[in-house]
């Protein structure tokens, strides 16, 4: 489903040139649950930004469902993010002034869907994370785990091809973290492709395929056989 070839990304920080990604190639299929693991500074965040179309590689080829997006305009990337990718962030990144319902609804508003259709999809997504009863609460009235579940519902609402989770358990206690991971595994079983970015090997182990990244390069890729689910 997604295919990266010879991706390079370089940052200039002061006088230092940092090769955040140096010749990374990887393909991920549409039913996989992959974790990308690496210490901080390894380039995994850069990789996630590129996969999530939040950033563009300097060199290489990136295809999503056969489309080369390297030449996409900013607006085309916005549409692509909206339709194909569901983001889950470590910081949850919910809008604090909106209710859970409104947060989940937001990507659908940007799609231009009519209110009636939005409602169906929002309720559907909230049901998947089991939060329908709290949908009129604002994020600050919810626990961390609940906030992350709202964020997951928001990622699911547009029925994306790919769910991209960046340290989804990083801000949660271990018990809640387990619950969130359980939820992600459930979503995978229901047929969602998930890419999980983490520095935590224990979390990474829960994915069926693990890609280690160090110093901007892929160090190891367990492939699909490495499933430990």
């Amino acid at each position: 489903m997604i295919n990266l070839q010879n991706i390079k990304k370089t940052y200039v920080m002061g006088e230092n040139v940092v090769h955040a990604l140096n010749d990374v190639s990887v393909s991920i299929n549409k039913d996989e649950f992959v974790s990308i693991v690496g210490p901080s500074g390894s380039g995994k965040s850069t990789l996630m930004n590129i996969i999530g179309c939040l950033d563009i590689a300097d060199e290489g080829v990136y295809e999503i469902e056969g489309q080369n997006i390297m030449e996409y305009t900013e607006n085309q990337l916005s549409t692509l993010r909206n339709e194909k990718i569901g983001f889950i962030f470590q910081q949850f990144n919910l809008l604090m002034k909106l209710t859970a319902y409104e947060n989940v609804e937001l990507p659908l508003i940007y799609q231009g869907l009519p209110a009636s259709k939005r409602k169906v999809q929002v309720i559907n997504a909230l049901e998947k994370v089991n939060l329908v009863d709290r949908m009129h609460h604002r994020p600050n009235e919810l626990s961390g785990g609940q906030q992350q579940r709202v964020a997951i519902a928001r990622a699911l609402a547009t029925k994306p091809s790919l769910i991209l989770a960046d340290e989804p358990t990083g801000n949660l206690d271990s018990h809640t973290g387990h619950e969130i991971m359980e939820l992600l595994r459930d979503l995978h079983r229901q047929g969602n492709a998930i890419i999980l970015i983490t520095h935590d090997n224990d979390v990474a182990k829960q994915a069926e395929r693990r890609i280690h990244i160090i110093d901007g390069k892929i160090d190891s890729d367990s492939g699909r056989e490495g499933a430990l689910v």
Partner: protein
Amino acid sequence: MKFNQALKMALSALRANLGRSFLTMLGIIIGVFAVTVLISIVGSATNEMTDSIEGMGADLVTSIWMSPKKTYVTVDDLDELLEKDSIKDVAATTGGSNSTIKAGTEVVDVSVTGVTSNYALMQEQVLERGRFLSDLDIELNTSKAVIDYDTAIDLFKTDYCVGSTISINGEEFEIVGVLEKPSNNMGGMNDTVVNIPITTAQRMYKNTELSNIIVQATSAETVDAAAQELKIYSKRVIKDSDYFMVYSNREFLDILDEITGIMSAVLGGIASISLLVGGIGIMNIMLVSVTERTREIGIRKAIGAKKMDILVQFVIEAVVLCIAGGLLGLLLGYAGIAIASQLMDMAVSMSLSTIMLALGFSVAVGLVFGIYPANKASNLRPIEALRYE
């Protein structure tokens, strides 16, 4: 994204910061208040003056004679002007003479004018009670007087004084008419009027010279021609054009229009500056707001907001702020105008065009000063915006 969704987002963002939104609007509120009140007051004053001048007859042309030498022109000599095609009627007055008027124990000092019998109708004077001076009064140089309402009240405490006697410089006169009570809103244009037959005035003040020659044009189109005839006649009589001036009420109206137009522009301009300052205030706060909400913008972009979506959202916020400020300013303006009406003893009203102007200006200010911050917001790159703490 649909417009109503953008509007909803903008409104909820403004609601979330109600106190700040109000402070941001304050510049616009004060600006609109100042613009509407000033323009309304000038406009209403202009209308009043125009009305009262038009009430004095737009088809009249007056020549004021100030000749140092005697002209020896009599009222009968003026019949010559009646032969002109453009002139329908001619009236004349003597120069006003400051005189002491007594009625019982009341004494007032006023200017007394001798007039021809057609003067009152030409000036469109209206009686409260009694009658005007007649041809017979002029012919027989009777001691009759027509006085204005306020003078009647000053002398007699009532306007029911027709038939009463007053003394003008020691000579007894009978009051035959009292002019109508002036409406409150004459804008300070009321003059004291004590009119006596022109013949009587000439005898009493021992001065046969005419001071004001007033001609009535046959129609609005012939006013200029009538003015020309009067000018030629005056020139012939007085020779030196420094010693007479001819003006038509319409000319006067034009000058008045010009003056008030300039006044409106100057006052409106000054008030507009406050609107401009208000707009800059809005831009400032919007810029702060964009910085504060960098993360929100990042989140919105990450989940699919396009540049235009963000731009529209922030521009609408600025415009909504300005419109709300404009409406509050109008409301305040209404209150200000009500107070001004009371203080200035004048009916001040806000015209629809003033309201439209104020609101139009508010929207324009919102658009102009909202674009820059909104553009800044829409150009934020999502990864940087997301990283912003």
